[in-house]
């Protein structure tokens, strides 16, 4: 009996904790959605209301029609998809080499790559910006995509290598005896097997790039036409006054693609994150 009560209390406590964490995580999202349907005067009143007095869907229409939403959205899609593609390509190749080949300094190079995770992008802004100026890449799409790819590589290599380490070498040797070159082993054996990691890296990278704000603002300093969505919708934020309903509507719209990608790939993602954790 005592055991049952203890179990019940323990279960109840953990559920309460999980509910609290969920509320803390979900509240900003729900608040964003709620605000996106409000009128400006309703937001600015001194009385805070959670539920809008009336649902103003035209906030969304305004954002889409008047704020170059389509253009910013397409910019973001372009930056995100090319970055994801770049990260998947370079990280998987590098991880294949780090995992399955021996060469002098292999460990040192690997730890150098991984060590770059310790440097936050803002910490490298000034040298990066100077470098991009010298390469004539400031205010260009390439000037944004290249640092984006670089920023995602270290973590992606780490994930890919962990996964490739678990693939038995005999599989590669069998492929070699079957007539595969190293390149074909990578393309025809390693990559098809790495689907869970491809999905995981895609989601992590896409989320990071889609939500990235600061680097885009710095690199595209004088070409607003190339802004990604996250920078573009900030036009609703003024110096003295911020148009919260439209800003929130824009942010709500910006959230949809990443949410869809996550829902589509989440089953792979769980496999990818736990890959190598359990001997199967």
């Amino acid at each position, binding site marked *: 009996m005592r055991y049952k009560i203890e179990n019940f209390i323990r279960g109840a406590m953990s559920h309460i904790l999980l509910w609290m964490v969920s509320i803390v995580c979900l509240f900003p999202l729900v608040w964003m959605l709620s605000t996106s349907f409000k009128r400006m005067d309703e937001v600015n009143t001194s009385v805070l209301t959670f539920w809008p007095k009336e649902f103003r869907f035209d906030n969304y229409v305004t954002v889409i029609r008047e704020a170059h939403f389509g253009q910013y959205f397409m910019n973001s899609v372009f930056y995100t998809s090319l970055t994801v593609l770049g990260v998947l390509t370079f990280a998987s190749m590098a991880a294949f080499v780090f995992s399955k080949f021996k060469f002098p300094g292999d460990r040192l190079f690997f730890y150098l790559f991984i060590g770059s995770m310790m440097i936050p992008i803002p910490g490298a802004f000034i040298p990066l910006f100077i470098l991009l100026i010298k390469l004539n890449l400031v205010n260009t799409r390439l000037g944004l995509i290249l640092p984006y790819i670089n920023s995602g590589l270290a973590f992606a290599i780490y994930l890919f290598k962990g996964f490739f380490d678990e693939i038995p070498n005999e599989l590669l*040797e*069998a492929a070699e*005896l079957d*007539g*595969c070159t190293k390149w*074909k082993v990578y393309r025809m054996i390693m990559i098809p097997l790495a689907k869970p990691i491809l999905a995981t890296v895609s989601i992590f990278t896409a989320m990071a790039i889609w939500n990235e704000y600061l680097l885009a603002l710095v690199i595209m300093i004088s070409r607003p036409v190339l802004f990604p969505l996250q920078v573009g919708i900030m036009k609703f934020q003024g110096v003295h006054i911020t148009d919260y309903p439209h800003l929130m509507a824009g942010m709500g719209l910006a959230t949809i693609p990443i949410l869809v990608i996550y829902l589509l790939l989440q089953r792979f993602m769980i496999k990818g994150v736990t890959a190598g954790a359990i001997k199967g």
Partner: protein
Amino acid sequence: MAEVILKNVSKIYPGGYCAVQDISMEIRDKEFMILVGPSGCGKSTTLRMIAGLESISSGDLLIDGKRVNDVPAMDRDIAMVFQNYALYPHMTIFDNMAFSLHMRKYPKAEIKKRVEEAAEILGLTAVLDRKPKSLSGGQRQRVAVGRAIVRKPKVFLFDEPLSNLDAALRVQMRAELSNLHHRLQTTMIYVTHDQVEAMTMGDRIAVLHKARIQQIDRPMALYDRPASQFVAGFIGSPAMNFFRGRIKEVNNEMFLESDGFSLKLLPQTRDSLARGGQNVTDVMLGIRPEDVYDKLFIPAAEDRNVLPATVDLVEPMGAEIFLRLRCGAYSITARMRKDVTVTVGQDMDLVLDMKRIHLFEADSGRALLS
């Protein structure tokens, strides 16, 4: 069809570890050669060097008379079956078997024909559309063999292919692989640490120990005439019994004296020893468990050659009984008929079949009887 020749082949890894030392052997066309030895003896490394998966530090490897030391694995026309099957998990069984032919750009019709033929031989026709994970261990091993068959390679290599299977399936697959060899009439090189597999499957066996070849011979020749104490102890289950002793000659008769007993050697043993081990006095006597008898069944045995022993363990095997006995400082295994009734702790008089003894030089382990 091909002959594989290794001439003084060695493998030394960076850091100086020598995995294979100065190995020479000729594997004849269509021969089923077994490489057997304990873990770390260099058998798998030798196989991997033949496959082209390991570089050769020194020596020559010839396939069909052509030196292939520097020929990449894919161009050696060799197929290999791995211990853990090494099937491609993302491909169907058909694609697994067809993969090497696709790589070599065979026409689709030819690929289909070959895969279906191999599947027919191995009983895999019904599972060609399935993925490896849905197959049993035995089926996966057959797919691995099928993948090798479809290529019709010059040489088949097997690296402990039955180790992951349960005992019953291992016996079945052993027979299947032997049949396959008779059917395909191709050179096969098979690595195992299991001497039963080696004895039952191979045309010849190469026994490796400490990176060197100890002996190459036919299975029964290895069993009956081991060239060293190591081979004598490794081949045969239960293993050969060994006693340390000294050879003494008294009144023109030769004796082996050990702790607590003295054995009179036969004249033919003395003659043979004179040829192979002159001046050797410290020896190891080896006797197989089936050559140890209960004196009750050998009434004509000389009293001099009787070893008093005590039964330590009785292991009924069905058709026979294995007895572990204590004889002075030594432990002896005897293989007895199943109708022998003995109990643990019982005293027994043992008689050795002196015609079947083996003598080895105590220091080097070299066989002394020719």
